[in-house]
């Protein structure tokens, strides 16, 4: 096994170009399990923890651009006000030890459908920035996930950053697990109210081959809010609409039975989570709008 340790971003890209099969490692929370459990023996490992550029975040036009190496602990501490949904999801990632090391970049690279960062980023129409020696491309996350633990990266590319609009309205994240802490999602759901664009964004985790959005549910609830004029005069959404929203979220999932839960339960739980998280977020919106 070869250990590659670039100290700058250009050097990292050059190494990846020269070693297209190199497995990138940052916090190691996924990669090291593979190595310790003898599930993978990559020919080379590319350590990104010396690339300072990956640890930076800032505004890029109207978007927040967050380096792939920013840890969950920093997202909670530094970005909780701008990205509350992602911060809530980050709080549910593993333990303090894991959050101190794990990164959203790693979550994107692994592309596990159970990754906690995916649903809130999908709900906010996030982008991923991929870089190679041949240039940079930004891809909507909705197009990034291509299958279970597969994504649209080319062999010469590395994840530089992800980009997302700062929250313009309340956000929520919920994750079902069979333990009250430190648990991989049985299923998860994120919701983001975009009051400027008058849109409800959604993201579903661990209930399909990839993280997915619930497009029909979004269209439905956007319609309900528009028709009833609830953006102008925020009031409660009628229970029947909430039920329908939940059903549509569940319908967007394509879950399987596995060690963590059954497909039927996952659909059931997603409907519950969708209703609850929408209600929490909408209640908060109504309070702030009426204040």
């Amino acid at each position: 096994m070869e250990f590659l340790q670039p100290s700058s971003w250009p050097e990292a890209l050059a190494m990846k170009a020269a070693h297209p099969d190199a497995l990138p490692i940052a916090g190691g929370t996924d990669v090291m399990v593979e190595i310790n459990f003898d599930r993978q023996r990559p020919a080379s490992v590319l350590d990104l923890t010396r690339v300072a550029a990956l640890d930076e975040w800032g505004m890029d036009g109207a978007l927040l651009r967050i380096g792939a190496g920013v840890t969950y602990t920093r997202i909670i501490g530094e970005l909780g006000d701008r990205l509350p949904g992602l911060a809530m999801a980050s709080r549910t990632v593993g333990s303090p030890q894991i959050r101190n090391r794990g990164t959203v970049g790693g979550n994107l690279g692994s592309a596990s459908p159970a990754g906690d960062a995916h649903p809130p980023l999908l709900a906010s129409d996030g982008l991923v920035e991929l870089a190679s020696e041949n240039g940079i491309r930004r891809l909507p996350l909705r197009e990034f996930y291509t299958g279970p633990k597969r994504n649209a990266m080319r062999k010469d590319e590395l994840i530089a950053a992800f980009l997302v609009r700062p929250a313009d309205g309340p956000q929520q994240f919920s994750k079902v697990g069979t333990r009250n802490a430190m648990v991989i999602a049985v299923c998860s759901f994120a919701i983001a109210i975009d009051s400027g664009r008058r849109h409800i964004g959604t993201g579903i985790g661990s209930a399909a081959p990839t993280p997915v959005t619930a497009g029909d549910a979004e269209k439905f609830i956007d319609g309900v809010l528009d028709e009833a004029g609830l953006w102008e005069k925020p009031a409660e959404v009628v229970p029947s609409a909430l039920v329908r929203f939940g059903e549509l979220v569940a319908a967007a999932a394509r879950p399987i039975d596995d060690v963590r839960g059954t497909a039927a339960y996952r659909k059931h739980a997603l409907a519950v989570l969708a209703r609850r998280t929408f209600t929490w977020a909408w209640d908060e919106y109504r309070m702030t709008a009426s204040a």
Partner: protein
Amino acid sequence: MRLSCAVNGRSLVAEEVWEGESLLYVLRERMGLFGSKNACEQGECGSCSVYLDGALVCACLVLAGQAEGRAVVTVEGIGSAESLHPVQQAFAEAGAVQCGFCTPGLIVATHDLLSRVPDPTTIQIREALAGNICRCTGYAKIIEAVHVAAARMTR
């Protein structure tokens, strides 16, 4: 490969490290620091908790080469044989130690918690230590020990 880093304030070098070794393996088998424990080697139990450049991490999830030139503090760097750290003292007194395999990781995690939150509530303690599995005690005496240590350290 060759690995050098500062461990508990001393600069240590390990030779002929296989690139796939974790920091945990290097600390234990090459540096003789067996205090960090090998219970799950997948970041699920916290028994190998150490500081890496001041951040609490699971040593099993750090690839050895990632620690090159970094500062590592293990349980052996907290307190000394002559004088236990108040956290260690409190664990020993409160009955928070049974088989003790989780204890070193809990000592480091508690040390980290109290450095950030000097007088934590029970709920804060429970959330901060959720990544440290103990199979023997049911946690009650561990939580009691953290309170005792916090009280002594803030006095």
